């Protein structure tokens, strides 16, 4: 291969990154920013990142040295102890605090903010017998650390406590009760992955030597056990609940592994708790994806129900790392609801998976309104028939890799009898090469008989979905038809059609006749028909056919649409160009232009105070708006008078920009950071000119769903031949380098604007040369971005190599893993490197908890495969699975048992330190095939979405439509009606003039702020009625369970008898909002 070596590739990336840093350092040193240095330090490895993150640079080398001989977890424990030693002079609490943070940072690879913000503080408290104890106060962002790191952080605190001779925590019975109530309350509000029973909680609390405390993180308060002496807050402590339940109790084994090794037996109590004793009920998990059914997101199949997605093992070049592939035609037949990058909630092996197209697996089978029953073989055909579909009898295959079963530790489900398997059997049975290509059913049968191998998969049907009676019945019909020389025409009855649909046989109808389009398979298999005495349909058909026939679809996987795919520029709400505070002077549109022109252009606002080094002018600017001299940071903030129009004019002058060039220019109301630092107005002006908006940290971001790719064709990513060579690739199919990314076209358009903004900034503000000089999107190829995920604060360098039409970011599984993401519906962002280096400052970040999240506090230059989230190491690397694999699946063994044989990429990394040389089993013509935009996003109203959702429920054979309707009512309509009903009677009132809100209407009926006497309702009756209408529709069209009918009648009665029926109802066009649509990530995780 002519592709460059990995070393050369890394040199290329390093060179590009260094170029950016060199330019940015010069620019930032000109004193035109709030700080004079580039604020994103480069890290070469994990140890560097941790040093930068915690601002403890001296520990990096220690971590590196220890890592040579120890596992990451051992390094964490050891470093924690050393840290405690180091800080023991600065007070016990400080020592424990620092060591827990160091340990946690190592456990989370230096990427998460959990070590900074997940631990609010560590305190030394007093037991009631007067002894001391250590209390770790956790906060919300600890969630990101994951169960294992959470659990081990408690262990670390214990180790350090021992080292410093601090006593054990002793809990009182009343305090235990508080914890129990609190954990149950939390589970109601946020849902815990693992909810321990009272006994387990008691056991842990009584024995845990460290006090697990937390910040009151939820709005809800506990109702019993309030105002406790040692736990001041009455709010639910989310961090505590997570660490105790999803940490300690869910990861008991991990903790015990270490305590055993360390010879500490204080933690043996865990042997009686948590996941050690209770194996999570398996069947509960199977239906979980249905439990949280969402309005407008269709169900595609019930658990293991005929007609649903058929499991097929393997990895396509676009799958792995929790992404699975389906046929592009299936995406279309499902009314475009599934697009590339859409998340599917699945029954197994994990909870969810992102979808990618693969046209080398089987597509769906449908019944059309003209009586045709056929398999859809390509996109074109799917588009032709989709409007005529009256039933989807089979969704086709879903391709899931062995690696995903391994990662989820899910037993291997029996493999269908597929070509790959048959081929291996044929080779093993010494079938001559030229006969392996089977031309027709006769050949297939002869071959099976001669070599004693099962029937070729191309001639197989879903025999296991029929009963023996049905097989016999069909046999009679076929025999009859053959005798009468009518074949392939058989006399049709509804029952017969039903059997053919279940079996997956293609046919069409002419009058009352059914004409089989089965390539004579049924005739050849059932020609010698005799009734067989057996209860096993597979045995039955094998006997009839005289050859072994293997199950074609032993496992179907239930699924529903989860989060739809996403790709879009990040906009704060409302959209903002500049981090400049204008209070209320810019009208409700926050327009800086309006504010600068208005009579209020001098206003008081809390800002970081800077003083002019020349004329003593005071203001938030970095360059004096009076005399142009540098302004010096006084280190404090105050409410001072700002003269916006002066700053505005000086900025325009400085840039040589006319105010008429700007269409809109928006600022923020106030600055939220600790020091209240204000961004130079010039930056915002240039952003506005280039039509890009700013994120809270000063950068421009583009967000997208994560999708994996390991191999690409240069043509499908719009990579021209000469460009390809320039960046180290060949025309045609290439294995992707781990830090290369393929961005959506829309992202490219946005980044092109950002590049122009950056160039303007360099030229007009810093008075330097342009850097990017991009004329069109293709000039972005080869440039570096920072990839950064929410909840994390460590970015990784990525290189743009091409573009796709999908709404998602295609990148190497290792790249996603380096951001601590997988592809089960996660999303994250990119920013142009130069934008980050010039514009990011820690001083812009909000001072609230979680403010450091999603900020590039450090960037990793080169991806080290041994330092990424280990999930990526389980991705398949082979071009085929061995015969033994398929046979092993029949035994439902744990995937880890055959790991060595399956050689996931872990084995390559261990051997060569590199992920180069991966292979795949299935390709696809074009990574842009299938559906590119889910209809969930194109349909405008929720009513339309629900209508389509129910229509799919009706036509998909694997879905129980009545159950879907019932769940929809339970999860949406009933709670909405109840909520709105109660809400109506306890609603706030609002002033139409000044927007003041009143918990209760003032007795005078007048606004107490502005005197206006027009106060209005905030919750309208129209909202309640709307839900009643939707519910009535469902009641009419579906069979609902009696208990639900009573429930509905009950709430209807309550509503009907509470409101004046003669009143004209104000029609409020209500949209049933999915909270998930607007927020994504965090809320979605809570639902898990």
């Amino acid at each position, binding site marked *: 291969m002519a592709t460059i070596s990995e070393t050369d590739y890394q040199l290329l990336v390093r060179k590009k990154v260094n170029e950016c840093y060199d330019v940015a350092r010069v620019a930032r040193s000109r004193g035109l920013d709030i700080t004079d240095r580039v604020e994103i330090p480069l890290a070469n490895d994990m140890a560097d990142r941790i040093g930068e993150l915690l601002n403890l640079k001296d520990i990096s080398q220690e971590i590196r040295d220890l890592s040579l001989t120890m596992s990451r977890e051992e390094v964490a424990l050891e470093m924690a102890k050393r840290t405690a030693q180091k800080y023991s002079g600065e007070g016990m609490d400080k020592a424990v605090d620092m060591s827990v943070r160091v340990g946690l940072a190592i456990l989370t690879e230096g990427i998460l903010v959990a070590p900074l913000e997940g631990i609010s503080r560590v305190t030394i408290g007093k037991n009631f017998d007067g002894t001391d104890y250590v209390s770790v106060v956790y906060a919300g962002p600890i969630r990101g650390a994951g169960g294992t790191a959470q659990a081990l952080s408690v262990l670390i605190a214990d180790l350090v406590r021992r080292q410093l001779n601090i006593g054990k925590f002793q809990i009182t019975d009343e305090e235990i009760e508080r914890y129990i109530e609190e954990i149950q309350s939390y589970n109601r509000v946020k849902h815990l992955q693992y909810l321990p029973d009272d006994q387990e909680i008691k056991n842990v609390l009584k024995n845990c030597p460290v006090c697990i405390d937390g910040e009151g993180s939820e709005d809800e308060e506990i*109702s019993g056990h*309030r105002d406790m002496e040692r736990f001041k807050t009455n709010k639910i402590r989310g961090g505590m609940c997570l660490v105790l339940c999803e940490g300690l109790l869910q990861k008991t084994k991990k903790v015990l592994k270490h305590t055993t090794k360390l010879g500490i037996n204080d933690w043996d109590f865990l042997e009686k708790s948590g996941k050690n004793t209770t194996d999570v009920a398996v069947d509960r998990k199977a239906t979980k994806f249905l439990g949280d059914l969402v309005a407008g997101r269709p169900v595609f199949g019930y658990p293991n129900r005929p007609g649903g997605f058929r499991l097929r093992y393997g990895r396509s070049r676009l799958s792995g790392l929790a992404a699975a592939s389906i046929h592009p035609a299936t995406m279309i037949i499902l009314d475009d609801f599934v697009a590339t990058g859409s998340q599917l909630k699945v029954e197994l092996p994990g909870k969810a998976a992102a979808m990618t197209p693969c046209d080398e697996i089987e597509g769906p089978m449908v019944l059309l309104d003209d009586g045709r029953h056929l398999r859809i073989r390509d996109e074109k055909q799917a588009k032709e028939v989709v409007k005529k579909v009256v039933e989807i009898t089979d969704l086709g295959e879903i391709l899931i890799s062995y690696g995903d079963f391994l990662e989820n530790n899910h037993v291997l489900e029996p493999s269908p009898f597929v070509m790959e398997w048959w081929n291996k059997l044929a080779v093993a049975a010494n079938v001559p090469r030229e006969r392996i290509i089977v031309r027709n059913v006769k050949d297939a049968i002869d071959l099976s008989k001669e070599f004693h191998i099962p029937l070729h998969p191309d001639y197989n049907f879903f025999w296991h979905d029929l009963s023996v009676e049905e097989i016999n019945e069909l046999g009679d019909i076929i025999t009859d038809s053959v005798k009468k020389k009518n074949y392939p025409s058989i006399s049709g009855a509804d029952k017969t059609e039903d059997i053919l649909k279940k079996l997956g046989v293609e046919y069409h109808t002419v009058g009352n006749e059914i004409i089989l389009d089965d390539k004579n398979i049924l005739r050849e298999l059932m020609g010698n028909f005799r009734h067989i005495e057996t209860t096993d349909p597979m045995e039955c058909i094998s006997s009839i056919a005289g050859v072994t026939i293997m199950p074609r679809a032993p496992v179907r996987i239930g699924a529903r649409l989860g989060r739809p795919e996403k790709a879009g520029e990040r906009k704060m709400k409302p959209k903002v160009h500049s981090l400049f505070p204008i209070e209320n002077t810019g009208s409700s549109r926050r327009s800086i232009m309006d504010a600068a022109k208005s009579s209020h252009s001098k206003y008081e606002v809390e800002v970081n105070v800077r003083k002019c080094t020349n004329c003593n002018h005071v203001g938030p600017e970095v360059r004096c708006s009076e005399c142009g001299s540098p302004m010096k940071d006084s280190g404090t903030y105050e409410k001072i008078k700002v003269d916006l129009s002066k700053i505005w004019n000086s900025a325009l002058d400085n840039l040589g920009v006319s105010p008429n060039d700007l269409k809109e220019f928006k600022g923020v109301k106030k600055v939220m950071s600790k020091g209240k630092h204000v961004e130079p107005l010039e930056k915002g002006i240039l952003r506005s000119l280039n039509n890009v908006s700013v994120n809270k940290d000063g950068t421009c971001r583009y967000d997208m769903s994560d999708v994996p790719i390991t191999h690409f064709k240069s043509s499908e990513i719009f990579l021209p031949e000469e460009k390809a060579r320039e960046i180290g690739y060949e025309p045609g199919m290439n294995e992707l380098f781990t830090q290369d990314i393929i961005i959506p076209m829309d992202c490219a358009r946005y980044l092109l604007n950002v590049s122009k903004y950056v160039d303007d900034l360099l030229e007009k503000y810093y008075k330097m040369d342009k850097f990017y000089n991009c004329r069109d999107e293709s000039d972005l190829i080869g440039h570096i971005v920072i990839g950064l995920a929410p909840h994390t604060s460590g970015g990784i360098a990525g290189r743009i190599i091409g573009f796709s039409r999908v709404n998602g970011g295609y990148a190497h599984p290792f790249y996603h893993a380096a951001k601590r993401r997988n592809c089960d519906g996660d999303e994250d962002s990119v920013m142009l490197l130069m934008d980050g280096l010039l514009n990011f400052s820690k001083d812009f970040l909000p001072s609230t908890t979680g403010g450091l999240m999603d900020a590039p506090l450090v960037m990793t230059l080169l991806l080290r495969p041994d330092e990424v989230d280990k999930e990526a190491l389980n991705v398949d690397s082979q071009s085929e699975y061995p015969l033994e694999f398929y046979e092993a699946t029949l035994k439902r063994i744990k995937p880890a048992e055959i790991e060595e044989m399956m050689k996931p990429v872990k084995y390559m990394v261990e051997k060569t330190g590199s992920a180069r040389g991966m292979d795949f089993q299935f390709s696809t013509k074009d990574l842009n095939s299938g559906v590119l935009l889910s209809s969930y996003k194109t349909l405008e109203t929720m009513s339309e979405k629900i209508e389509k959702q129910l229509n799919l429920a009706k036509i998909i054979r694997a879905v129980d439509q009545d159950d879907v309707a019932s769940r929809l009512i*339970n999860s949406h309509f*009933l709670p909405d009606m109840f909520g709105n009903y*109660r809400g109506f009677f306890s609603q706030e009132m609002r002033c139409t003039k000044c927007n003041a809100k009143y918990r*209760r*209407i003032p*007795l005078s*009926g007048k606004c107490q702020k502005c005197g206006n006497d027009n106060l209005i309702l905030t919750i309208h009756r129209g909202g309640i009625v709307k839900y009643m209408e939707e519910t009535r529709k469902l009641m009419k069209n579906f069979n609902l369970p009696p208990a639900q009918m009573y429930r509905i009648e009950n709430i209807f009665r309550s*509503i009907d008898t509470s409101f004046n029926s003669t009143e004209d109802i104000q029609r409020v066009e209500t949209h049933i909002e999915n909270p998930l649509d607007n927020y994504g990530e965090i809320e979605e995780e809570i639902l898990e």
Partner: protein
Amino acid sequence: MVSGIFTDRNKILEFFNSRGLIVDPAALQIIMEKSLGTMITHLIDNETMKSGIVGRQNVLNLIGGNQVKNPAVMREIDVNDIKANSSVEDFRKMFVNRYETLKSIIVNAGKFREVDSISSVREKDSREVKIVGMISNVTETRNGHKKFRIEDTESYIDVIILKKNPMAKELLLNDEVVGVIGSRPRASNDRENSEPVIFANELIRPDVPERMIDDTGLPPEYVCSISDIHVGSKTFIKNGFSSFLKWINSSSDESANLKHLILSGDVVDGIGVYPNQENDLEIVNPKEQYEYLAEFVNQVPSDINVYIMPGNHDTVRLAEPQPELSPAIRQMFTEKVTFLPNPYNLRIKKKLITLYHGMSLNDLIELIPGGNMNSVGKAIELMLKRRYMGPVYGGRTPIIPNQFDPHIFRDVPDIFITGHIHGHYLGNYNGVRYVNSSTWQSQTEYQKMMNYSPDPCIATLFDLNSKTVIKKNFLPKAFSE
């Protein structure tokens, strides 16, 4: 000409409405039938002005007509007619009615001969001001003083209680009506535009005047109170309820003197009260739940008057006031059963028994510092002291906004009965005997989670002729360890 006005239904209503009175439909019926004409002006008297409604009895008194058969079940107002409109004004009228009613109670109690209007108080400083208003925005100042806003129908002013004043420790609820005696100092010069404040010296609540329960010396006549039977639930204690009925039918002295039986809400478990309730139900169909209840209740001897009131589990609307159970349900029961709305003032033998299912108790308990489900006694006294049994607005108890709020204790009850909480709590506040009646349901999953143990299967007997109160426990042995 004058008489013409009063033959038109709407005109009659308008006439009374303009004077702040509501007309009971039954009363309107009689007025229309008897063509009372100008006579109806006589209906505006002290009694109707105080209650805010023109009831059927008022009309009958006027025309000297027939006495109603059972005055105990005279409807003050047909609750079915109280309906919500999409009107801010309805909300306001509800609070104004509450304010005016409670204000008149405070003023009539004596301390306030004259009340200053808040707008006059705002205008100038004064050594002593006396105002009555509705509270909101209770907070603590930076220096630990208590601060709240108080409103009358025209204006508002902020009130401060200094922390050294013992009143500062008292629980102040939003929307309660209090009288304030205090001073309104001159606004200090440096803060010319600042809001005026009152420094309160004294707070006066409507409260219940202290009084004795009279002992007539007559033989006992018992009113028996039970609540929250939850028929239909898997946790309904059938045995306990059966043995209660067996006792009622027995010839013991107590049961022989029992003349009235009150079921104060949640008589069945209903359906759809909380998610997945069907899993906790033995009988899913609410109609069948009532049929089953009727089987029990119809065993009560015919000389006992039975009163059934709905609660939040019953199949009437959730919002209060709740109307009596529907005719379809009522016809399952024998004639001795009387159906009441919730809340209700039941008058038996000149005694006022105020009944309220008690949904708002949950809201109130949470507002009591350190309060839990065992603080129900405190919550009930808190209601009596404020002469209001409803919740703080904005909580979890929906109330239909209307001009006549039945949650006000317009008259001081002799006995106040609630349920809902499932605990049994008996008390006496200034001579008002009260009970939170026991349930007939064992501990539910929800209560287990909330760490609350109910006291099921207790019947409470109040003697109308003396201060005797008797607790009878019917909890089967199996439950009582």
